[in-house]
């Protein structure tokens, strides 16, 4: 197990990068602590696979250092780094039994036979595949195969970290729940550094204690799932986390705070002060659909809005509300009912109304 430190790391696939746009990963410093359960979350093309390949040793970074427990490993192969990887598609030997598949990495490392037997049994029990040990791998279902893949990573006791690259993509939704739960138990039991790459926020947030959100070659926020949800540090995090994502509205300054169309949004004094110090005109407010309040009667600082559309998603509804030229999405519970075209009153609670300048969150200085 190791602490993985990415120091002044940057990577460009181009031999002579001329600007930030030539970088798959822009310069960053990042530490994955020993024994942590982490996720690396972002859309395709954000640089997360490059980052994973740099950690594992498949790609050598063009700038900066990769340190495992303080030791530079830039030049070491994945094997010498003792990194285990679990990929989207199970990597196992179809013609071997489950037992042989699990024993294989240990045999390669010349582990004594008695210990191999013990260890394979132990891992098989954790993964609940002990009754499959003597089955040929090719006769397993997709989720069983992926469990064996994971088992091959877990079986080595000297492993520095396990990297997961979209491991549940080929698994049915019903089984994803079980496998995710299994992974979490494994993490608690083995206390191993795990980095889980995914574009699925639910997978990331239910697996990881902390998530690094990548966007455009940068880590725009590193935080707990709750922090990413409640205090998105960047508009991209607001948009990407949550379904639907955060409502983001371009605003102009006004006396009380900011406004869009004829709607004024009252801001806190420190927010106004902050805005006054900046010259940027790229100012947005953001509020999550979950935090918008809807009532039938006007309230202090409420806005009258028109119900434009309502989408029934079974356990909840998403309602589109028109306010001037803007459409805001709000999440309401499944019992809520409103006529399309009717008017309701919308409130944006100040503690959930975020202010963004040049796409980054303005936070109160403590």
């Amino acid at each position, binding site marked *: 197990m190791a602490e993985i430190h990415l120091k002044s790391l940057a990577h460009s696939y181009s031999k002579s990068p001329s600007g930030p746009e030539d970088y798959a990963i822009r310069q960053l410093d990042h530490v994955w602590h020993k024994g942590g359960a982490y996720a690396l979350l972002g859309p*395709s093309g954000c640089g997360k696979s490059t980052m994973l390949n740099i950690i594992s040793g498949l790609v050598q970074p063009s700038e900066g250092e990769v340190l495992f427990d303080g030791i530079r490993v830039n030049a070491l192969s994945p094997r010498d780094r003792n990194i285990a990887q679990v990929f989207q598609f199970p990597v196992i030997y179809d013609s071997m039994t489950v037992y042989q598949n699990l024993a294989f990495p240990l045999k390669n490392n010349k582990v004594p036979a008695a210990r191999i037997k013990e260890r394979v049994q132990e891992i098989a029990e954790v993964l609940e595949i002990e009754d499959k040990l003597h089955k040929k791998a090719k006769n397993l279902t997709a989720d069983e195969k992926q469990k064996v893949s994971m088992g091959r990573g877990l079986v080595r006791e000297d492993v520095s970290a396990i990297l997961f690259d979209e491991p549940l993509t080929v698994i049915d*939704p019903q089984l994803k729940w079980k496998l995710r739960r299994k992974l979490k138990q494994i993490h608690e039991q083995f206390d191993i550094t795990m980095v889980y790459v995914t574009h699925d926020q*639910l997978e990331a947030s239910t697996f990881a204690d902390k998530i690094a959100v990548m966007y455009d070659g940068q880590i725009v926020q590193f935080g707990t799932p709750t922090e990413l949800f409640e205090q998105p540090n960047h508009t991209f995090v607001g948009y990407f986390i949550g379904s639907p994502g955060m409502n983001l509205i371009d605003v102009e300054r006004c006396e009380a705070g900011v406004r869009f169309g004829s709607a004024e949004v009252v801001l806190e004094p420190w927010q106004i002060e902050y805005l006054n110090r900046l010259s940027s005109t790229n100012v947005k407010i953001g509020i999550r659909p979950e935090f918008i309040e809807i009532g039938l009667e006007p309230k202090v600082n409420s806005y009258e809005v028109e119900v434009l559309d309502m989408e029934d998603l079974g*356990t909840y509804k998403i309602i589109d509300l028109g306010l001037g030229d803007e459409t805001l999405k709000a999440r309401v519970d499944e019992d809520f009912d409103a006529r399309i075209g009717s008017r309701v009153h919308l409130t944006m609670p100040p503690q959930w109304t975020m202010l963004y300048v040049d796409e980054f969150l303005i936070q109160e200085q403590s």
Partner: protein
Amino acid sequence: MSLTLENLSRIVDGVDYIRNASLTFEAGSFNVLLGRTLAGKTSLMRLMAGLDKPTEGRLIYNGEDVTGQSVQRRNISMIYQQFINYPNLSVYENIASPLRLAKMPSSEIDRRVKETAAMLRIEPLLKRFPLELSGGQQQRTAMARALVKDATLVLFDEPLVNLDYKLREELRAELRDLFRERQCIAVYATTEANEALALGGTTTLLHQGQVVQSGPVMDVYRKPVNTLAAQLFSEPPMNLIRGRVSDTELSFDEDTRHALTQELADLQPGEYWFGIRPSHIALKPANDDDLEVPVQVALSEISGSETFMHVESRHFEMVTQLMGVHQYHTGAPISVYLPINKLFVFDTHEQLVHTPSQVSGRGV
């Protein structure tokens, strides 16, 4: 205009790919096939397209028997999980290819390609080649090619599965809007209950090659005919607890007993399966007659806005979907509350015998 499947089966070497499927698809309808991997979604689509021949049954299109008619003779588009484009053709030519094949005049081709590309927001990419595009753009290109020719039947086989979930969210919304104005039959296969709900239209539940239930999406969701349908159309899956009803009492086990209320008065004494959706379980009672169930916490999964808490008792386990962050230690004893008016009840043959009473709408 409609497509009817009459007792359609495809059984090869003793393997049931599809068994006795009878369904009707109307023009202008959006139809979702929901089922797990290998449930028969692709098999059913291949039969509908004429790519495979049924071993029994008939395929009727507009009153005409088209069973066994090859796909070339019918106006069908199919979109697959993998983004299939011609790598040596530009995006423009990829989209134009079915029209060129149909020998359409080039001015008409140009008009249609541009119109379809605009619809799918890939107009700026028309001169590029597929390998220069992101996954989402490649799939949009494949979709544009399928949509450009005004097919009467458009089949989507899990088209978004290889895309980011944010992109999926966007494309899903676009698809729904696209088909609102079209008069073709759209069929869309997915493994995800939430995708079926978001797409709307008609939902057909498939399992092991058989149709479990079919109907307007909310009807199927609100009235699952059996426990299988309930499980298939609920994510996380609906909790099912074995319990019994006596003349006076409802009980799950010795720790969970409740006086029988009006809501369940129509149930005869006996054994049942009680179903409750994860989102309907609460940590506090909302009504006096909510069922209090003592459990232990097995695991809390926190998604930022919600918590999926797995709980268990000696005889059953449940998943709850709670708004907000709820952190408990594994093994913590707590009580969860099941609103009695949200309970589904199935008999011992797993058939639905009681639907939750219609919740009264709040709001305008």
